[in-house]
């Protein structure tokens, strides 16, 4: 009888606690400080030397994104207006960047208004609004870092970003459209922080692109270098108004990356199908790409 009475008390208490768990937590983690990228991880090639030409693998690109990438000629970046083009928010955390994070709090009651992020790559300043303000209009301008709002989910900061410019899912390979939405999670484990991003792009992706990067807290925050000077110059002769691109079937670099790494051509062209474990069976049936002869 006594047990039954206890159970009677414990069950409602348990459910009350469960219900409270659904409410956003108030006690959150402190993310402030200067963070260095862990560039020795699996994302090293993308963070430092950059991807090879036509290295689309690991990206759930749709056919449209793939066609855009195959038509892309790297010399387009030498057009003056492209030279100082910034990596958009869905890509910039894979830069060789440092970032400084700090909080903006109300002067009177110290409630959290925003979390600011300064990213050294391309000198980007980013505000993650924590005050529940409404999102901009469909007619509002888009920016490299977009418009971000954040919520705490337990000790994880979850950020949703809209209104981003056109940029890259993978630089000089696959485009990210200006209709992308990015959901990020900042998770701190002691002096290490994991950044996870989920990008949805109705124009160039067939499934969400999920990535992660790790950062280490810097002991001396005064080492932060916020500068990324970029001034465009004329890089050789270009015909005014010309835009470098390949016609269909004329990109000479399609097979180079695949052949260098003894991979079938198909897998290097990305797509959601190539990202699932069962694709390994299909890969075994595909011929390895051959190095282009010219």
């Amino acid at each position: 009888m006594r047990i039954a009475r206890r159970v009677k008390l414990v069950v409602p208490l348990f459910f009350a606690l469960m219900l409270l768990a659904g409410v956003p937590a108030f006690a959150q983690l402190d993310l402030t400080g200067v963070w260095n990228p862990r560039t020795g991880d699996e994302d090293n090639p993308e963070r430092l030397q950059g991807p090879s030409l036509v290295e689309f693998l690991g990206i759930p690109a749709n056919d449209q994104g793939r066609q855009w990438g195959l038509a892309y000629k790297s010399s387009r970046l030498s057009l003056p207006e492209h030279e100082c083009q910034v990596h958009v928010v869905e890509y910039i955390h894979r830069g060789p960047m440092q970032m400084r994070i700090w909080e903006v709090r109300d002067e009177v009651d110290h409630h959290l208004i925003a979390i600011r992020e300064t990213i050294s790559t391309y000198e980007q300043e980013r505000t993650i609004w924590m005050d529940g303000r409404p999102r901009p209009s469909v007619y509002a301008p888009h920016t490299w870092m977009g418009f971000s709002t954040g919520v705490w989910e337990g000790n994880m900061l979850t950020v949703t970003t809209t209104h981003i410019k056109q940029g890259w899912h993978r630089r000089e390979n696959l485009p990210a459209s200006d209709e992308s939405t990015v959901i990020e999670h900042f998770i701190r484990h002691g002096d290490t922080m994991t950044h996870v991003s989920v990008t949805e792009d109705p124009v160039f992706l067939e499934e969400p692109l999920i990535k992660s990067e790790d950062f280490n807290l810097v002991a001396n925050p005064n080492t932060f270098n916020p500068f990324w000077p970029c001034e465009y110059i004329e890089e050789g002769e270009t015909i005014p108004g010309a835009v470098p691109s390949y016609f269909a079937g004329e990109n000479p670099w399609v097979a180079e990356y695949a052949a260098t790494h003894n991979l079938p051509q198909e897998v290097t062209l990305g797509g959601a199908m190539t990202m699932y474990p069962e694709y390994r069976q299909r890969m075994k049936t595909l011929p390895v790409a051959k190095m282009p002869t010219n």
Partner: protein
Amino acid sequence: MKRTLLRVITVGLAGVALLAAYGTILLAQQPQIRTPRQTPPPVNPDYSRMEIETLPVQGKIFLLAGAGGNIAVQAGDDGVLLVDTGAEKMVDKTLAAIRKLSPKPIRTIIYTTLADDHTGGSGPLVKAGSVNQAGPGLGGRPNEADLIANTGILRLMTEIGEAKIPTDRWPPSTFHGKQKDLYSNDEPVVIEAVPNAVTAGDSIVWFRKSDVVVTGEIFNQTSYPFIDIEHGGTINGILAGLNRLLEITVPKHLQEGGTMLIPGHGRISDEHDLLEYRDMCTIIRDRVQNAISKNMTLAQIKAVKPGFTYEYDLRFGKNPAWTPDQFIEAIYKSLTARK
């Protein structure tokens, strides 16, 4: 004892069900926040349900969006200057939106192009306006707003005729040649001709102190640029206009901000947005030109799969009134037209 335990278990299970339902509701309540997509206007819009949204651009310039084509408003001590006037059936809402920005008279209206959704509201808006220093008995000029456009627009309107375009939309003030200069609300306003772009009479309007350019339909954030071949439009005219805009625009920092652009439709933009649009139009033009150089016919070009616009169609090919096929056809016709 057994009954009590049974009751506890029942209550517990009910609680689990309640919790599951609550969890589902919580998940359902999580707003699915996504970047709003740039959508072209519907083919037969229900104007009674359409609302105008007003956004500050920068300086003295505001965007009125949702009245058809985008409308730019310059508001200041001198009065109101409008670039384009939206659709005819939205004119009451347009005027109400203008009045929220300024009680001063509409002094000047400028057309960027010929399309109904840019010129349709001009009749009532001109009559609601007042010319600087004019009035009854002053030179016999009616006391209404001045209406300015490239000569090409007046010529096209007269050719099309008043049965289709009422004469109160015809611009009494025209300019020919490269540009016309105004000074309004303490800033220079330059109207630059964009020859043979969307039509034979397009213009861009550059507010030099506010650092805003109204592009008209040569730059459209919801669609491929319309090319009205019948009325003098050409793809190379569009590209010349886009490249001219790239010369004018100056980004503030690393290709962002600075000179702001009000496109014919869709969101406020800057140089990088324009750059991607220019790149796209150039690449598609080059593909058609390359096919023409290989003696491909229009039918053969249209049959190529994936098509010449394929990678851009999910972003710019959604306009049922201006499909990718129509865009390709217009490019082909303008590139193969006899000079």
